[in-house]
């Protein structure tokens, strides 16, 4: 059942940073609690602040296997939970001899062998440490949330023909969401909640330095400050951490060692993805 993986909050931040993910107080404590209380963790925040990365890093830090359920419009039970392999069932029925009674066939056809396990069921049935990542939960339809409720509160799945399957070992569950729609109260109540936002200047600099170690500290500092200036403008899409990292890589690849007007003008496309944002940033930073 519940087998905590982390000893303390400090342990969380230490092992996650070893896995390449720099935490702050809130992240470390929340991950620690999710692990300790055995509750799913709902991570919300703008695109590119490292929600999915967090789950991956936790999987790496705990030596667990990462099972990922990517949500999209039209995701259903058959893709998320389990499905009967009806082709194989059909074969079994056709291959049966005449003296097989219907009861035998019936019991046989709805057995483990004919069950196709999908991410949620796979995660529940595993006996080794597991991290289950339910990515972009807000993209899925509202009905999928209902489906998740049983899995997330009791860590069990009911299959009418087989009975209820309970987790032998609780997976560590991460749900991510971009908040394009409000998730239901029922789902939120079952989860711990972590809002990831753009990081503080120091943390962002540390992240850039750890992800792009070849970059000079001076340049990283300059870059982070510029990104923060961009975020303070009213842009359609503010640049996030992943864009900062991309920018650092771009500067490195181009061999630029200082971020002046010229450098920003030529590489702005890496951080801003809307034409109107370009115009706005250009005029506010007085690039031309």
């Amino acid at each position, binding site marked *: 059942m519940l087998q905590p993986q982390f000893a303390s909050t400090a342990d969380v931040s230490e092992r996650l940073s070893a896995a390449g993910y720099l935490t702050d107080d809130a992240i470390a404590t929340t991950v620690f*609690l999710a692990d*300790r209380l055995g509750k799913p963790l709902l991570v919300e925040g703008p695109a590119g602040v490292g929600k999915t990365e967090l789950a991956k890093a936790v999987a790496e830090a705990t030596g667990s296997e990462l099972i990922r359920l990517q949500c999209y*419009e039209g995701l259903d039970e058959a893709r998320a939970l389990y499905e009967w392999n009806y082709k194989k069932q059909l074969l079994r029925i056709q291959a049966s001899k005449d003296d097989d009674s219907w009861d035998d066939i019936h019991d046989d056809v709805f057995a483990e062998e004919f069950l196709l396990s999908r991410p949620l069921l796979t995660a529940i049935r595993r006996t080794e440490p597991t991290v289950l990542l339910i990515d972009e939960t807000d993209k899925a339809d509202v009905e999928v949330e209902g489906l998740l409720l049983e899995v997330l509160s009791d860590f069990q799945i009911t299959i009418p023909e087989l009975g209820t399957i309970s987790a032998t070992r609780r997976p560590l569950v991460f749900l991510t969401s971009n*908040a394009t*729609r409000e998730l239901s109260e029922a789902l939120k109540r079952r989860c711990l*909640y972590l809002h990831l936002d753009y990081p503080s200047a120091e943390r962002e600099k540390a992240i850039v330095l750890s992800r792009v170690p070849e970059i000079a500290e001076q340049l990283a500092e300059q870059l982070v400050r510029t990104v923060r*200036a961009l975020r303070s403008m*009213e842009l359609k899409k503010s640049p996030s951490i992943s864009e900062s990292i991309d920018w650092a890589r771009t500067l490195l690849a181009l061999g630029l060692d200082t971020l002046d007007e010229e450098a920003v003008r030529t590489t702005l496309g890496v951080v801003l993805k809307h034409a109107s944002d370009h115009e706005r940033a250009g005029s506010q*930073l007085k690039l031309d």
Partner: protein
Amino acid sequence: MTGGLLEREIGFFHALRDAGVNISLAEVLDATRALGAIDLLDRESLRAAYAATTLKRPAHRPAFDALFDLWFPPVTGDPSASGRDGEAAGGEPGEGAQGDGPPDTEALRDALRQLLLDGDEEAMRRFARETVRDLGKADTAPGRQNWFSYRVLRGLSPETLMASLLDNLLAGQQRGGMAEKVARQTITERIRQFQEMVESEVRRRLAEDRGAEQLSKTAVQPLAEQVDFLRASRNDMVELRRQVFPLARRLATRLTAKRRLGRSGRLDFRRTVRASLATGGVPLVTHHRPHKPHKPELTVICDVSGSVAGFAHFTLMLAYALSEQFTKVRAFAFIDTCDEVSRFFTPGGDVADALARMSAEANLVWFDGHSDYGHSLKEFAATYPDAVGPRTSLLILGDARNNYRATEVPVLRSLVARARHAYWLNPEPQAYWGSGDSATTAYAEAIEMVEVRNAVQLEAFVQRLLPT
């Protein structure tokens, strides 16, 4: 768990609920369980634990932080001991017992300048604590003290340090370019950080004197989306404008979800026959074509005179953010005469820019620059007869404060008759409608008038407006 802590926790949750954060019993139990797992002496862990278990919306975070500061104030140690430290750090050996004689603000400002330049958070927090102690106290009545953040911030006026800080930070680089903009942003951020520290320290002092329950009611600011448009400060408006795109995206998502759930259209013969091959030619499942979504045209006429401009801007931004839900969006602005402003809103263009250009370039004043709904409506009907047709949803935005001029209700009535839907969005509380120079009563007979005081009400209205 000890009784004292439990009581504190319950008081804290009550205060949160009063501030509009819904906390269910299940969440209270989770929070309590979480406390058993963490190190209770680490205040930031405690804050994170409560946040993880009880907070489920980022909008509630500021209220949560303010209340947490009140109910779980940081321990700062013996006040007199920290006082001695403070004087050493502040560099004013001459000042004796606290409160006697005016503190040397120049020295304090120098210290603050250095701190803002370094950006060392811990040192800044210590400095905030000391300055609140030295500058923030006022004796309001004999034996009663009060603490004010504005006394500290006015005394130090950190904003006025900007010029010299810029000089330092730019270190000889050219002024006026990108470097300055970036440096300015860095400093602004640090100053805001310092202001927040001062405010939180003042809250702590107040809570120490009077108890947390007393302060909980006043310490929390209303959420940006619940702030009245007519009373919104500039900061509120900036915060609201930031929320336009997320809001539009939420509305659009909800709309597509609703459309998908709605009944489907005519039988798709080809897909049905193709699918029937899998079941031996028997069409077990029929497939249908999706309904073509009905997209109305939107015509917005808005009063952009001083008092209601904020509301008009926000609504226009939202209308353009949602423009793909409509076949066409046309916007008209007026003060005492009416002009089309659609030309400022280019597709993919910057809406904030468009608003600025609109107020600068559009021809909105005819007579004296006071709101004149009657003349503007007449002008609109005469100049743009094609703007309202049988497919149009017509929105009029304004408080209907007409300065006692002619209302021209028949003009409005004919516009409403031509449009498919017509609504008047009024940012004034319904209780004030019809008072003073408000022509609400006259107009409400011709058009459905809706009270839209804040972003929440606007969101609800837009949901009603958008077709499914």
